[in-house]
Structure formats: structure tokens, C-alpha cells
């Protein structure tokens, strides 16, 4: 008898489970070793509580009513529930606070390889540690954790969520054009970005050129130079993070001035993990210095989440040598 399960969910059988467990144990060892205590929160939360985060694009996809008629949602990430935990359970605790988690999250995505609607995330949150030190610590934990799983070919793309808005402000882009440009950028559509810039009719051609070329800059520290005003400040912030990194972490970094993450709460540094053995990012994270304030405990914070399924696929790919083919 075949009984169906919902689209985007999956049964995990013992062979796969053993491999997944080895990965999560390796990650947990590093997280705990670096002082990040594991927490678990309910998969179901009140919608009005999570809505404080204003997640927009990654808002919860599954809703149910409880017996009182209250609307419950299945969490779409762990960062927002942990922000709630910090505000509710650690209201007067002295920061910094360090937490790690291994938890399933639920999203209404198009199911495909490495992309499930129920996905297991492994990650950390570092609460109360500002940039650049906090960011550098999170990146250090990230690379140590990936190394512990045996992943070899990975790189970390490092950007800043405030950079493009700062660039638009510095170049006097009209308010109504800004949302159009950000939307094209978020959709990774540079053809549309160029078209929107032409339509916007900016005063200087040089400004339009910068708005098109800067988000396509990625590579070594040289991509951080020659930026106007506030954008240079954001780039300076990225440079400061980079200088604080251990050499083995710093050599993994690719500066990426066009990096955008879909979650609405990022305020500063953002990062993503790439491996040549997988066509999609393995995970990512960034600074969310204003999220905790929305829950009543204003503290700067940074964190990341790894998709355990994707990490597993990348590790299997590196083993088969597909990663090496792509890397060269």
C-alpha cells in the first residue's frame, strides 16, 4: 500500500539518517564548543507574535486555528522565535547571549532538490554583540562548523544589506525608483535593473553606471574601492569584519556587493555559503540589529542558518568529485 505524504516533505530512512546525524553531531560539537547553548522552541507559534518581525517574503506559509480561534503558524525560521525567547526569558540577562539550534522550519516553496517545505536548519544566534566583532565571531563559527563536517570547497559570500540603499541615497535616486531597483536586484535581474535605471532618467550617467555596476562587483578586497559617500562606509564595515577574521576564514571570503537576502530583518553584513558541488547556497545569515527591538529588548545581533539537506548533498557531491570538476 502506498499512502501519500504532503508535497515538499520526505521520510528519512536509517542510512540517510545516520549520515545526517553525523553532520548535525559535527556541527553541534563546534557550536557547543564555542559557547552556543542549544535551544528548542515550539514549531507552532502565535501569528501575531511572529508578525512583529515583518518577514514579508519569508512569512509563514502554514496557518491553523487553535480551540480558542487564535491563529497559529508553523515557524518559517528560527531567528524570530529566538528573538522572542531572548525578550521573554532573558529580559535582564547580561549580553552577549549565544544560542544554537537544530530545528525544522516550514516554507511554502516549490519543492526540488535540496529544497523541502519542511527543512532542517542548523544555526547559531549571537545576541548583544555588535559589528564588526560579532559578525567576525559568527563567520569564524560558521567556517569551523563547516570544516568539522568535512566540507572542503566552500566559499563565503560577504555583502552588506545597507550598501545598495546607501548608494541610492548618495546618488539622489528618487524615492519611487528605489523600490523598483531593489526589486530587480532581489530578483537577480540585471537586464531589468538596467532598464529601470534608463527609465528613471537620473541626472548623471555616472550615477546610473555605478548603480548598475556596483551590485555586480564580487571578488577580492579590490571590489570595495571607489564607492561614493555612505556606500564607502558600508564597504569600510565589510573591510573591518574581514580584518578581524582568522586567516583560514578570511581566505574563504568573496566580497559580494550585490548580495541580497530575502528576509526583511537584515540591517548590515549579510553572508551566504556556496559550494561548487551544489547549484544553490547551502545557507546564510547576517546582522539583524533592529529585530530584537521589535520584541522589546533592543540588542544588536547576528546569526546564520545552514540547510542540513543541502549540506548533505554538497558533501556527497564533493565525495563523488563533482565539486572538484566544478571548482577548476
Amino acid at each position, binding site marked *: 500500500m502506498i499512502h501519500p505524504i504532503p508535497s515538499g516533505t520526505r521520510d528519512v530512512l536509517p542510512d540517510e539518517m545516520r549520515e545526517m546525524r553525523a553532520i548535525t553531531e559535527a556541527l553541534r560539537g563546534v557550536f557547543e564548543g564555542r559557547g552556543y547553548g542549544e535551544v528548542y522552541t515550539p514549531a507552532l507559534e502565535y501569528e501575531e507574535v511572529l508578525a512583529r518581525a515583518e518577514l514579508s*517574503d*519569508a512569512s509563514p*506559509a502554514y496557518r491553523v486555528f487553535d480551540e480558542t480561534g487564535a491563529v497559529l503558524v508553523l515557524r518559517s*525560521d528560527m531567528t524570530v522565535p529566538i528573538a522572542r525567547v531572548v525578550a521573554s526569558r532573558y529580559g535582564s540577562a547580561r549580553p552577549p547571549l549565544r544560542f544554537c539550534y537544530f530545528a525544522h*522550519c516550514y*516554507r*511554502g*516553496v*516549490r519543492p*526540488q*532538490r535540496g*529544497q523541502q517545505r519542511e*527543512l532542517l*536548519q542548523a544555526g547559531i544566534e549571537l545576541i548583544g554583540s555588535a559589528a564588526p566583532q560579532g559578525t567576525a565571531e559568527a563567520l569564524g563559527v560558521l567556517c569551523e562548523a563547516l570544516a568539522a563536517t568535512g566540507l572542503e570547497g566552500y*566559499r563565503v*559570500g560577504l555583502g552588506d544589506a545597507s550598501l545598495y540603499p546607501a548608494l541610492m541615497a548618495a546618488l539622489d535616486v528618487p524615492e519611487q525608483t528605489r523600490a523598483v531597483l531593489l526589486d530587480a536586484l*532581489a*530578483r*537577480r*535581474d*540585471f*537586464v*531589468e535593473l*538596467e532598464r529601470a535605471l534608463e527609465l528613471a532618467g537620473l541626472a548623471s550617467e555616472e550615477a546610473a553606471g555605478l548603480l548598475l555596476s556596483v551590485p*555586480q562587483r*564580487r*571578488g577580492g578586497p579590490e571590489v570595495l574601492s571607489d564607492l561614493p559617500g555612505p556606500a564607502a562606509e558600508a564597504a569600510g564595515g565589510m573591510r573591518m569584519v574581514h580584518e578581524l577574521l582568522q586567516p583560514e576564514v578570511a581566505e574563504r571570503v*568573496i566580497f*559580494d556587493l550585490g548580495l541580497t*537576502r*530575502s*528576509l526583511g530583518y537584515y540591517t548590515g553584513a549579510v553572508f*551566504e555559503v*556556496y*559550494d*561548487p558541488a*551544489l*547549484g*544553490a*547556497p547551502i*545557507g*546564510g545569515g547576517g546582522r539583524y540589529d533592529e529585530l530584537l527591538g521589535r520584541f522589546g529588548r533592543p540588542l544588536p545581533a547576528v546569526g546564520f*542558518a545552514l*540547510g542540513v539537506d543541502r549540506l548533505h548533498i554538497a558533501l556527497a557531491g564533493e565525495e563523488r568529485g563533482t565539486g572538484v570538476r*566544478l*571548482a*577548476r
Partner: protein
Amino acid sequence: MSVLNGLRIAVPRGALFDGTVDLLAGLGVDTAELRSNDRKLLFEEIGVITMRPSDVPTYVEAGAADVGITGKDVLAELVLPAGSVGGVPGGGRAGHGREVYELLDLGYGRCTMVLASRVGDLDPAAEALRRLGVMRVATKYPRIAARHLEETGRQAEIVEVKGSVELAPLTGLVEAIVDLTATGTTLRENDLAIREEILECTARLIANPVAHKLKAGAIDELLERLRAS
């Protein structure tokens, strides 16, 4: 090392094939076998794989090809309608189609997505909408058609067909079609008139999001040479 700096490129068979092969030849790729052998799919030595245009985003999104060339019509049809879901955990946005970079408008393969109905003083589609409250529209591009009619505030019943769309309004299946046309000849021959232009479509260069970061040098060099050519 191939001319493409080790990049693997997905090349569309069909209407965009000749323009794409000319483009590759212009970059110095040896295209002799690509032109002569239309059964072979994988040309490892020049870094080319060939496929239907609508499969190009699938291969590129998964990283089975680093970059690819396909029509804007294919990319626009991948964008999910408002209110539905899509995106990548921690990386994407809902409702925006495939997770690929759209890097360059290559300019060739120009054609237009149009709404057409039978020739005559009265547009049968507008008449159906006025009197029956809904127009029936046949298309191979159900999402583009639905989005266009939604955005222009008209109720429509979309009929998805796989073959010759022009047949549908001639037989009374629908009042209008949404289809791609380059010269308009097929439409005219079937007694159909263009009522609205929806979208200008050309060939686009797309890239896998991970390759875009890890092979930035090779992709930027390709872009520069394509812009210069």
C-alpha cells in the same frame, strides 16, 4: 581550457539556435560540429550542452550548466502568479520564478508576445468580455496570459494548448490567443489580428547563482566580450 574559460553553457535548440551558434562562433568557439550534428546533445570539448529553450533555466538553476541562453518568453512564463508560492529557503523570494541571474539582453531572436483574435471590426474577445463577462484565451503561455489579463482588470478563462494555438479561435474553442510572433505572418494567414502587444522578447544570458560567485572572473569576461561584440 575552452574559449569559455571552463564555463558550461546551455544552448537552446529551435528558433534561437542559429543566433546563439553565431554568437559563440564570434567568441571563437569551434562550432562546426554543433552546426552539423543536430542529434548530439553534449559537446564536452567546447563546453556546450543543447536542449529545448524551456529546459535551459532548469539546467542553469540546478547548476548542471553554469550559464545559459534562452528567450525572455521562457523566463517570463516561469514567474509564478501573484498569491502563489516559490523561492528558496534563506535565499529567494516568493513568486519570482527560477533562482537564476538574468545578466544580459543579447538582442537577437526578437519577437513579441501578443493578444490576437479574429480579424473584423468587432474584436470577438472584447465582445465576449462585454456580453458574457469573461473571455476565453488559448495559449502555450498560461502564466503570462493570466498575468496580463489580471493586470488589465479583465476576467479570462485560460485554455492551455500544446500545439498550434491559431486553430483555437478559428474553431470556436476560444475568442482570443496569447502567443509569440516574430513577423505576424502565421497570424495573418490564419485570419487573426493583433489586438495588444504584451511583451518584447529577446534572447537573454542567464547564470547559476553559485557559479555567478565562484566563477565570477570567467562569467564577467564572457559578459564583457558579449557586450563588446
